Protein backbone atom coordinates (compact mmCIF):
# COMPACT_ATOMS: atom_id res chain seq x y z
CA UNK A 1 0.00 0.00 0.00
CA UNK A 2 1.16 3.54 -0.65
CA UNK A 3 -0.19 6.91 0.27
CA UNK A 4 -1.61 8.84 -2.67
CA UNK A 5 -3.40 12.17 -2.20
CA UNK A 6 -4.29 11.11 1.34
CA UNK A 7 -5.55 7.65 0.34
CA UNK A 8 -3.97 4.31 1.13
CA UNK A 9 -3.81 2.73 -2.29
CA UNK A 10 -2.75 -0.68 -3.52
CA UNK A 11 0.12 -0.29 -6.00
CA UNK A 12 -0.12 -3.93 -6.94
CA UNK A 13 -1.84 -7.16 -6.00
CA UNK A 14 0.00 -9.84 -7.99
CA UNK A 15 2.62 -7.73 -9.77
CA UNK A 16 2.28 -4.80 -12.14
CA UNK A 17 3.10 -6.72 -15.32
CA UNK A 18 0.73 -9.59 -14.56
CA UNK A 19 -2.10 -7.17 -13.77
CA UNK A 20 -1.35 -5.07 -16.84
CA UNK A 21 -1.46 -8.06 -19.19
CA UNK A 22 -4.63 -9.34 -17.52
CA UNK A 23 -6.38 -6.06 -18.38
CA UNK A 24 -5.15 -6.21 -22.00
CA UNK A 25 -6.06 -9.87 -22.42
CA UNK A 26 -9.04 -10.46 -20.10
CA UNK A 27 -10.17 -7.97 -17.47
CA UNK A 28 -8.95 -6.13 -14.39
CA UNK A 29 -10.75 -4.53 -11.46
CA UNK A 30 -9.46 -1.27 -9.99
CA UNK A 31 -10.61 0.45 -6.83
CA UNK A 32 -10.41 4.09 -7.91
CA UNK A 33 -12.48 5.52 -5.07
CA UNK A 34 -9.75 8.11 -4.53
CA UNK A 35 -11.08 9.94 -7.61
CA UNK A 36 -13.00 13.02 -6.53
CA UNK A 37 -16.58 13.95 -7.31
CA UNK A 38 -17.96 17.47 -7.51
CA UNK A 39 -21.65 18.09 -8.13
CA UNK A 40 -23.16 21.26 -9.52
CA UNK A 41 -26.87 21.86 -9.01
CA UNK A 42 -29.31 24.60 -9.82
CA UNK A 43 -31.19 26.02 -12.77
CA UNK A 44 -27.97 27.26 -14.38
CA UNK A 45 -25.83 24.18 -13.71
CA UNK A 46 -25.30 22.97 -17.25
CA UNK A 47 -24.92 26.49 -18.70
CA UNK A 48 -22.37 27.30 -16.04
CA UNK A 49 -20.31 24.18 -16.85
CA UNK A 50 -20.54 24.99 -20.54
CA UNK A 51 -19.05 28.47 -19.90
CA UNK A 52 -16.40 27.12 -17.55
CA UNK A 53 -14.99 24.37 -19.78
CA UNK A 54 -13.50 24.24 -23.31
CA UNK A 55 -15.32 21.18 -24.65
CA UNK A 56 -18.87 21.58 -25.99
CA UNK A 57 -21.44 20.17 -23.58
CA UNK A 58 -24.30 21.29 -25.84
CA UNK A 59 -23.39 18.52 -28.27
CA UNK A 60 -24.12 15.77 -25.75
CA UNK A 61 -27.11 13.50 -26.04
CA UNK A 62 -28.98 12.38 -22.91
CA UNK A 63 -26.89 9.84 -21.05
CA UNK A 64 -23.65 10.89 -22.67
CA UNK A 65 -20.58 11.93 -20.69
CA UNK A 66 -17.64 14.00 -21.89
CA UNK A 67 -13.91 14.26 -21.31
CA UNK A 68 -13.24 17.89 -20.55
CA UNK A 69 -10.87 20.29 -18.81
CA UNK A 70 -10.80 23.05 -16.26
CA UNK A 71 -8.56 25.85 -17.53
CA UNK A 72 -7.25 28.98 -15.87
CA UNK A 73 -7.20 32.43 -17.52
CA UNK A 74 -3.75 31.73 -18.98
CA UNK A 75 -5.00 28.57 -20.64
CA UNK A 76 -3.11 26.37 -18.17
CA UNK A 77 -4.79 23.20 -16.99
CA UNK A 78 -6.41 23.19 -13.57
CA UNK A 79 -7.47 19.57 -14.10
CA UNK A 80 -8.72 17.08 -16.64
CA UNK A 81 -12.19 15.82 -15.79
CA UNK A 82 -15.15 13.81 -16.98
CA UNK A 83 -18.51 15.59 -16.96
CA UNK A 84 -21.75 13.65 -16.58
CA UNK A 85 -24.76 15.92 -17.19
CA UNK A 86 -27.45 14.13 -15.19
CA UNK A 87 -30.16 16.74 -15.78
CA UNK A 88 -30.19 20.34 -16.96
CA UNK A 89 -29.99 21.35 -13.30
CA UNK A 90 -27.60 18.68 -12.06
CA UNK A 91 -24.08 18.00 -13.32
CA UNK A 92 -21.80 15.35 -11.90
CA UNK A 93 -18.05 15.85 -12.39
CA UNK A 94 -15.32 13.27 -11.80
CA UNK A 95 -11.98 14.88 -10.97
CA UNK A 96 -8.46 13.77 -10.07
CA UNK A 97 -7.90 12.80 -6.44
CA UNK A 98 -4.97 15.11 -5.88
CA UNK A 99 -6.92 18.04 -7.34
CA UNK A 100 -10.26 17.53 -5.64
CA UNK A 101 -10.01 20.46 -3.23
CA UNK A 102 -8.43 22.74 -5.83
CA UNK A 103 -11.12 21.89 -8.39
CA UNK A 104 -13.94 22.30 -5.93
CA UNK A 105 -12.62 25.75 -4.93
CA UNK A 106 -12.16 26.65 -8.58
CA UNK A 107 -15.65 25.60 -9.64
CA UNK A 108 -17.28 27.13 -6.56
CA UNK A 109 -15.40 30.40 -7.07
CA UNK A 110 -16.72 30.76 -10.61
CA UNK A 111 -20.25 29.57 -9.86
CA UNK A 112 -22.83 32.32 -9.59
CA UNK A 113 -25.85 32.68 -7.37
CA UNK A 114 -27.94 30.18 -9.31
CA UNK A 115 -25.66 27.17 -8.87
CA UNK A 116 -24.72 25.18 -5.82
CA UNK A 117 -21.37 23.40 -5.90
CA UNK A 118 -20.74 20.48 -3.60
CA UNK A 119 -17.72 18.24 -3.03
CA UNK A 120 -19.32 14.80 -2.70
CA UNK A 121 -16.10 12.76 -2.94
CA UNK A 122 -16.66 11.07 0.41
CA UNK A 123 -20.09 9.87 -0.66
CA UNK A 124 -19.07 7.64 -3.55
CA UNK A 125 -16.74 4.83 -4.36
CA UNK A 126 -15.66 4.27 -7.93
CA UNK A 127 -14.66 0.88 -9.28
CA UNK A 128 -13.24 0.45 -12.77
CA UNK A 129 -13.80 -2.82 -14.61
CA UNK A 130 -11.53 -2.77 -17.66
CA UNK A 131 -10.59 -5.18 -20.41
CA UNK A 132 -12.03 -7.07 -23.37
CA UNK A 133 -14.13 -9.30 -21.08
CA UNK A 134 -15.51 -6.39 -19.03
CA UNK A 135 -18.88 -6.39 -20.78
CA UNK A 136 -19.35 -10.13 -20.33
CA UNK A 137 -18.54 -9.87 -16.62
CA UNK A 138 -20.71 -6.85 -15.88
CA UNK A 139 -23.64 -8.25 -17.88
CA UNK A 140 -23.98 -11.01 -15.29
CA UNK A 141 -24.83 -8.39 -12.68
CA UNK A 142 -27.17 -6.03 -14.51
CA UNK A 143 -30.41 -6.16 -16.46
CA UNK A 144 -29.31 -3.31 -18.73
CA UNK A 145 -28.29 -4.36 -22.24
CA UNK A 146 -24.64 -3.42 -22.13
CA UNK A 147 -23.99 -4.13 -25.80
CA UNK A 148 -26.18 -1.10 -26.49
CA UNK A 149 -24.21 1.17 -24.17
CA UNK A 150 -21.76 3.10 -26.32
CA UNK A 151 -18.39 4.45 -25.23
CA UNK A 152 -18.75 7.47 -22.95
CA UNK A 153 -22.46 6.81 -22.28
CA UNK A 154 -23.79 6.09 -18.79
CA UNK A 155 -26.94 4.93 -17.00
CA UNK A 156 -28.32 4.48 -13.51
CA UNK A 157 -29.22 0.97 -12.52
CA UNK A 158 -28.62 -1.91 -10.16
CA UNK A 159 -25.32 -3.77 -10.35
CA UNK A 160 -25.53 -6.94 -8.29
CA UNK A 161 -28.49 -5.35 -6.51
CA UNK A 162 -26.56 -2.17 -5.66
CA UNK A 163 -27.82 1.20 -6.94
CA UNK A 164 -25.08 2.48 -9.21
CA UNK A 165 -24.14 4.81 -11.99
CA UNK A 166 -22.39 2.85 -14.75
CA UNK A 167 -20.34 4.61 -17.41
CA UNK A 168 -18.57 3.04 -20.37
CA UNK A 169 -15.38 4.91 -19.65
CA UNK A 170 -11.91 4.14 -18.38
CA UNK A 171 -8.26 4.96 -18.17
CA UNK A 172 -6.58 1.90 -19.63
CA UNK A 173 -7.14 1.99 -23.39
CA UNK A 174 -9.42 -1.03 -23.18
CA UNK A 175 -13.18 -1.34 -23.33
CA UNK A 176 -14.62 -1.11 -19.85
CA UNK A 177 -16.81 0.51 -17.27
CA UNK A 178 -16.49 2.83 -14.33
CA UNK A 179 -19.11 2.18 -11.68
CA UNK A 180 -20.04 4.65 -8.95
CA UNK A 181 -22.07 3.75 -5.86
CA UNK A 182 -22.57 4.91 -2.29
CA UNK A 183 -19.42 4.35 -0.20
CA UNK A 184 -21.28 2.08 2.22
CA UNK A 185 -21.96 -0.35 -0.65
CA UNK A 186 -18.46 -0.24 -2.11
CA UNK A 187 -17.13 -3.43 -0.63
CA UNK A 188 -20.25 -5.32 -1.66
CA UNK A 189 -19.92 -4.03 -5.23
CA UNK A 190 -16.24 -4.99 -5.38
CA UNK A 191 -17.01 -8.52 -4.13
CA UNK A 192 -19.93 -8.93 -6.54
CA UNK A 193 -17.73 -7.92 -9.48
CA UNK A 194 -14.84 -10.16 -8.40
CA UNK A 195 -17.30 -13.07 -8.07
CA UNK A 196 -18.87 -12.41 -11.46
CA UNK A 197 -15.41 -12.23 -13.00
CA UNK A 198 -13.90 -15.27 -11.35
CA UNK A 199 -14.53 -17.61 -14.28
CA UNK A 200 -13.35 -15.00 -16.78
CA UNK A 201 -9.96 -14.56 -15.15
CA UNK A 202 -10.75 -11.15 -13.66
CA UNK A 203 -7.65 -9.79 -11.92
CA UNK A 204 -7.58 -7.21 -9.13
CA UNK A 205 -5.28 -4.44 -10.35
CA UNK A 206 -3.50 -1.58 -8.59
CA UNK A 207 -2.18 1.89 -9.26
CA UNK A 208 1.00 0.54 -10.85
CA UNK A 209 -0.84 -1.20 -13.69
CA UNK A 210 -3.24 1.73 -14.04
CA UNK A 211 -0.23 3.92 -14.75
CA UNK A 212 1.46 1.62 -17.30
CA UNK A 213 -1.88 1.00 -19.06
CA UNK A 214 -2.75 4.68 -19.40
CA UNK A 215 0.80 5.47 -20.52
CA UNK A 216 0.68 2.94 -23.38
CA UNK A 217 -2.58 4.53 -24.52
CA UNK A 218 -0.97 8.02 -24.06
CA UNK A 219 -3.69 9.21 -21.69
CA UNK A 220 -2.39 12.20 -19.73
CA UNK A 221 -1.81 12.03 -15.97
CA UNK A 222 -2.26 15.29 -14.13
CA UNK A 223 1.03 16.39 -12.56
CA UNK A 224 2.96 14.70 -15.38
CA UNK A 225 1.59 15.63 -18.81
CA UNK A 226 -0.73 18.34 -17.47
CA UNK A 227 -0.36 21.10 -14.91
CA UNK A 228 -1.35 24.69 -14.20
CA UNK A 229 1.11 26.09 -16.76
CA UNK A 230 0.56 23.51 -19.51
CA UNK A 231 -2.14 24.21 -22.08
CA UNK A 232 -4.23 21.56 -23.83
CA UNK A 233 -2.78 22.73 -27.18
CA UNK A 234 0.70 21.78 -25.98
CA UNK A 235 -0.60 18.50 -24.56
CA UNK A 236 -2.15 17.35 -27.84
CA UNK A 237 -5.65 17.86 -26.46
CA UNK A 238 -6.71 20.22 -29.26
CA UNK A 239 -9.74 18.02 -29.85
CA UNK A 240 -11.09 18.98 -26.42
CA UNK A 241 -10.87 22.72 -27.14
CA UNK A 242 -13.86 23.95 -29.15
CA UNK A 243 -13.03 27.47 -30.32
CA UNK A 244 -16.42 27.43 -32.06
CA UNK A 245 -17.87 28.13 -28.61
CA UNK A 246 -18.31 31.88 -28.03
CA UNK A 247 -16.70 31.85 -24.65
CA UNK A 248 -15.10 29.62 -22.08
CA UNK A 249 -12.56 30.29 -19.39
CA UNK A 250 -9.08 30.35 -20.96
CA UNK A 251 -10.34 30.84 -24.55
CA UNK A 252 -8.53 34.12 -25.21
CA UNK A 253 -5.20 32.81 -23.92
CA UNK A 254 -5.47 29.66 -26.02
CA UNK A 255 -6.48 31.59 -29.11
CA UNK A 256 -3.46 33.83 -28.62
CA UNK A 257 -1.20 30.82 -28.17
CA UNK A 258 -2.61 29.22 -31.30
CA UNK A 259 -2.00 32.39 -33.32
CA UNK A 260 1.49 32.98 -31.98
CA UNK A 261 2.47 29.36 -32.36
CA UNK A 262 2.79 26.46 -29.92
CA UNK A 263 6.32 26.46 -28.55
CA UNK A 264 6.46 22.94 -27.09
CA UNK A 265 4.56 19.77 -27.77
CA UNK A 266 3.88 16.47 -26.11
CA UNK A 267 5.52 13.62 -28.01
CA UNK A 268 5.99 9.90 -27.70
CA UNK A 269 9.48 8.46 -27.32
CA UNK A 270 10.78 5.00 -27.88
CA UNK A 271 14.25 4.27 -26.54
CA UNK A 272 16.75 3.04 -29.12
CA UNK A 273 19.55 2.57 -26.58
CA UNK A 274 19.13 0.50 -23.42
CA UNK A 275 17.60 2.33 -20.49
CA UNK A 276 14.25 3.64 -19.34
CA UNK A 277 13.41 7.34 -19.55
CA UNK A 278 11.71 8.57 -16.39
CA UNK A 279 9.81 11.67 -15.38
CA UNK A 280 11.96 14.87 -15.45
CA UNK A 281 14.91 13.34 -17.34
CA UNK A 282 16.25 16.02 -19.74
CA UNK A 283 16.05 15.57 -23.50
CA UNK A 284 18.57 16.80 -26.07
CA UNK A 285 18.41 17.25 -29.82
CA UNK A 286 21.77 17.59 -31.60
CA UNK A 287 23.40 18.43 -28.29
CA UNK A 288 20.94 21.16 -27.38
CA UNK A 289 18.43 20.83 -24.58
CA UNK A 290 14.92 20.58 -26.00
CA UNK A 291 12.70 19.32 -23.22
CA UNK A 292 11.90 16.89 -20.47
CA UNK A 293 10.31 13.49 -19.98
CA UNK A 294 6.90 13.51 -18.27
CA UNK A 295 6.24 9.76 -17.86
CA UNK A 296 8.22 6.69 -18.83
CA UNK A 297 8.26 2.97 -18.29
CA UNK A 298 9.02 -0.30 -19.97
CA UNK A 299 5.81 -1.11 -21.80
CA UNK A 300 4.54 -4.51 -20.66
CA UNK A 301 2.49 -4.94 -23.86
CA UNK A 302 5.19 -3.89 -26.33
CA UNK A 303 8.29 -4.96 -24.40
CA UNK A 304 9.97 -1.64 -25.23
CA UNK A 305 10.97 1.35 -23.13
CA UNK A 306 8.50 4.14 -23.91
CA UNK A 307 7.97 7.66 -22.61
CA UNK A 308 5.96 10.82 -23.09
CA UNK A 309 7.85 14.09 -23.11
CA UNK A 310 7.61 17.76 -23.94
CA UNK A 311 10.06 18.95 -26.60
CA UNK A 312 10.36 22.20 -28.50
CA UNK A 313 7.81 22.32 -31.30
CA UNK A 314 10.46 22.50 -34.03
CA UNK A 315 11.89 19.17 -32.79
CA UNK A 316 8.59 17.37 -32.32
CA UNK A 317 8.27 15.63 -35.71
CA UNK A 318 7.77 11.88 -35.67
CA UNK A 319 10.97 10.10 -36.66
CA UNK A 320 13.33 12.64 -35.12
CA UNK A 321 16.24 11.31 -33.09
CA UNK A 322 16.78 12.72 -29.62
CA UNK A 323 18.87 11.81 -26.59
CA UNK A 324 17.58 11.26 -23.08
CA UNK A 325 19.96 11.86 -20.22
CA UNK A 326 19.70 8.82 -17.97
CA UNK A 327 21.78 9.18 -14.81
CA UNK A 328 24.44 11.21 -16.57
CA UNK A 329 24.55 9.10 -19.72
CA UNK A 330 22.99 10.16 -23.04
CA UNK A 331 20.78 7.42 -24.48
CA UNK A 332 19.33 7.56 -27.99
CA UNK A 333 15.58 7.67 -28.50
CA UNK A 334 13.26 8.35 -31.38
CA UNK A 335 10.03 10.30 -31.57
CA UNK A 336 7.14 7.97 -32.40
CA UNK A 337 3.40 8.54 -32.94
CA UNK A 338 1.06 8.53 -29.95
CA UNK A 339 -0.57 6.43 -28.67
CA UNK A 340 1.87 3.55 -28.26
CA UNK A 341 -1.02 1.13 -27.99
CA UNK A 342 -4.53 1.19 -29.41
CA UNK A 343 -6.93 -1.70 -28.97
CA UNK A 344 -8.21 -3.45 -32.07
CA UNK A 345 -11.87 -2.75 -32.80
CA UNK A 346 -13.95 -5.79 -31.83
CA UNK A 347 -16.23 -5.74 -34.82
Amino acid at each position, binding site marked *: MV*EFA*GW*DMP*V*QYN*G*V*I*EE*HLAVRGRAGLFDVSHMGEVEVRGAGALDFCQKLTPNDLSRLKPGQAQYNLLLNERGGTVDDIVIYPLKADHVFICVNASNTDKDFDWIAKHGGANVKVENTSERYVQIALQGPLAEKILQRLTAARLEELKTFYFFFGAVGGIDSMVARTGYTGEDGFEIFCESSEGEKLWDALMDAGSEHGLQAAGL*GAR*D*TLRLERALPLYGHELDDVTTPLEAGLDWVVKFSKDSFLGREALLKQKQEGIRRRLVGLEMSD*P*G*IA*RSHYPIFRTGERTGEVTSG*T*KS*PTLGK*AIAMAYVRAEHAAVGNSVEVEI*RGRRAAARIVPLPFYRRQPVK
Partner: protein
Amino acid sequence: MEFPEGLKYSKEHEWVLVEDKVAIIGITEFAEHELGDVVYVELPEVGEKVVKDDPFAAVESVKAVSDVFAPVSGTVLEINDTLPENPETINDDPYGDGWMIKVEMTDKDDLKDLMSAEEYAEYIEQQKEEDDDDDEEEKRKDEDEDEE
Protein backbone atom coordinates in the same frame (compact mmCIF):
# COMPACT_ATOMS: atom_id res chain seq x y z
CA MET B 1 10.80 -14.01 3.23
CA GLU B 2 14.17 -15.66 3.04
CA PHE B 3 17.57 -14.30 4.15
CA PRO B 4 20.09 -17.10 3.70
CA GLU B 5 22.64 -17.75 6.46
CA GLY B 6 26.22 -17.21 5.39
CA LEU B 7 25.49 -14.00 3.50
CA LYS B 8 26.19 -10.49 4.83
CA TYR B 9 23.55 -7.79 4.46
CA SER B 10 23.62 -4.00 4.12
CA LYS B 11 21.09 -1.46 5.33
CA GLU B 12 20.42 -0.57 1.70
CA HIS B 13 19.27 -4.18 1.10
CA GLU B 14 22.23 -5.62 -0.75
CA TRP B 15 23.66 -9.03 0.10
CA VAL B 16 27.33 -10.06 -0.04
CA LEU B 17 28.79 -13.53 -0.34
CA VAL B 18 32.44 -13.43 0.71
CA GLU B 19 34.94 -15.84 -0.87
CA ASP B 20 38.36 -14.85 0.44
CA LYS B 21 39.06 -11.39 -1.07
CA VAL B 22 36.14 -11.56 -3.48
CA ALA B 23 32.65 -10.29 -2.69
CA ILE B 24 29.67 -11.43 -4.78
CA ILE B 25 26.92 -8.82 -4.54
CA GLY B 26 23.19 -8.78 -5.25
CA ILE B 27 19.98 -7.37 -3.83
CA THR B 28 17.87 -9.09 -1.18
CA GLU B 29 14.47 -10.69 -1.57
CA PHE B 30 13.06 -7.80 0.46
CA ALA B 31 14.50 -5.32 -2.06
CA GLU B 32 13.30 -7.16 -5.16
CA HIS B 33 9.89 -7.60 -3.58
CA GLU B 34 9.62 -3.88 -2.78
CA LEU B 35 10.65 -3.02 -6.34
CA GLY B 36 8.25 -5.37 -8.05
CA ASP B 37 8.87 -6.73 -11.55
CA VAL B 38 12.43 -5.85 -12.52
CA VAL B 39 12.55 -4.82 -16.20
CA TYR B 40 15.96 -3.22 -16.55
CA VAL B 41 19.35 -3.55 -14.90
CA GLU B 42 22.31 -1.27 -15.41
CA LEU B 43 25.65 -2.73 -14.29
CA PRO B 44 29.16 -1.27 -14.07
CA GLU B 45 31.92 -2.53 -16.36
CA VAL B 46 34.62 -5.00 -15.44
CA GLY B 47 37.63 -3.13 -14.10
CA GLU B 48 35.56 -0.24 -12.72
CA LYS B 49 36.07 0.79 -9.11
CA VAL B 50 33.11 0.71 -6.76
CA VAL B 51 33.08 2.72 -3.55
CA LYS B 52 31.35 1.59 -0.38
CA ASP B 53 27.96 3.32 0.05
CA ASP B 54 28.05 4.82 -3.46
CA PRO B 55 25.67 3.60 -6.18
CA PHE B 56 27.24 1.08 -8.56
CA ALA B 57 24.17 -0.13 -10.44
CA ALA B 58 20.53 0.70 -11.11
CA VAL B 59 17.61 -1.66 -10.99
CA GLU B 60 14.34 -0.59 -12.58
CA SER B 61 10.83 -1.92 -12.20
CA VAL B 62 7.98 -0.78 -14.44
CA LYS B 63 7.15 1.85 -11.87
CA ALA B 64 10.48 3.20 -10.61
CA VAL B 65 14.25 3.19 -10.70
CA SER B 66 16.39 2.36 -7.67
CA ASP B 67 20.11 2.78 -7.13
CA VAL B 68 22.05 -0.18 -5.83
CA PHE B 69 24.73 0.82 -3.33
CA ALA B 70 28.09 -0.89 -2.99
CA PRO B 71 28.29 -2.63 0.38
CA VAL B 72 32.11 -2.78 0.03
CA SER B 73 34.80 -0.94 -1.93
CA GLY B 74 36.83 -2.64 -4.61
CA THR B 75 37.35 -3.40 -8.27
CA VAL B 76 34.75 -5.15 -10.42
CA LEU B 77 36.10 -8.57 -11.48
CA GLU B 78 33.03 -9.91 -13.19
CA ILE B 79 29.45 -8.84 -13.93
CA ASN B 80 26.39 -11.01 -14.40
CA ASP B 81 25.96 -10.25 -18.09
CA THR B 82 22.81 -12.35 -18.39
CA LEU B 83 20.90 -9.71 -16.37
CA PRO B 84 20.47 -7.03 -19.06
CA GLU B 85 18.73 -9.63 -21.26
CA ASN B 86 16.87 -11.32 -18.40
CA PRO B 87 16.33 -8.73 -15.66
CA GLU B 88 13.46 -10.75 -14.18
CA THR B 89 16.09 -13.22 -12.88
CA ILE B 90 16.49 -10.81 -9.97
CA ASN B 91 12.89 -11.47 -8.94
CA ASP B 92 13.08 -15.20 -9.63
CA ASP B 93 16.34 -15.95 -7.86
CA PRO B 94 17.74 -12.90 -6.00
CA TYR B 95 20.40 -14.88 -4.10
CA GLY B 96 21.43 -17.19 -6.94
CA ASP B 97 21.24 -16.50 -10.68
CA GLY B 98 20.24 -12.92 -9.86
CA TRP B 99 23.68 -11.99 -8.52
CA MET B 100 24.97 -8.71 -9.92
CA ILE B 101 28.74 -8.25 -9.63
CA LYS B 102 31.91 -9.82 -8.21
CA VAL B 103 34.29 -7.38 -6.59
CA GLU B 104 37.86 -7.73 -5.39
CA MET B 105 37.69 -5.98 -2.05
CA THR B 106 40.21 -3.29 -1.16
CA ASP B 107 39.54 -3.50 2.57
CA LYS B 108 37.96 -6.49 4.24
CA ASP B 109 37.15 -4.22 7.22
CA ASP B 110 34.24 -2.94 5.10
CA LEU B 111 32.51 -6.21 5.99
CA LYS B 112 32.35 -5.24 9.66
CA ASP B 113 29.55 -2.76 8.95
CA LEU B 114 27.36 -5.46 7.40
CA MET B 115 24.71 -7.52 9.16
CA SER B 116 24.21 -11.25 9.62
CA ALA B 117 21.03 -12.87 8.28
CA GLU B 118 19.50 -12.74 11.74
CA GLU B 119 20.41 -9.08 12.27
CA TYR B 120 19.08 -8.17 8.83
CA ALA B 121 15.76 -9.94 9.47
CA GLU B 122 15.42 -7.89 12.68
CA TYR B 123 16.38 -4.73 10.81
CA ILE B 124 13.62 -5.36 8.24
CA GLU B 125 11.07 -5.82 11.02
CA GLN B 126 12.16 -2.53 12.60
CA GLN B 127 11.87 -0.76 9.25
CA LYS B 128 8.35 -2.07 8.79
CA GLU B 129 7.37 -0.89 12.27
CA GLU B 130 8.83 2.54 11.59
CA ASP B 131 6.84 2.71 8.36
CA ASP B 132 3.71 1.84 10.29
CA ASP B 133 4.56 4.56 12.83
CA ASP B 134 4.97 7.03 9.99
CA ASP B 135 1.57 6.02 8.64
CA GLU B 136 0.04 6.51 12.06
CA GLU B 137 1.63 9.93 12.28
CA GLU B 138 0.34 10.85 8.82
CA LYS B 139 -3.15 9.82 9.83
CA ARG B 140 -2.97 11.92 12.97
CA LYS B 141 -1.81 14.87 10.88
CA ASP B 142 -4.71 14.38 8.48
CA GLU B 143 -7.13 14.28 11.36
CA ASP B 144 -5.67 17.48 12.76
CA GLU B 145 -6.08 19.13 9.39
CA ASP B 146 -9.66 17.93 9.13
CA GLU B 147 -10.43 19.58 12.42
CA GLU B 148 -9.09 22.91 11.30
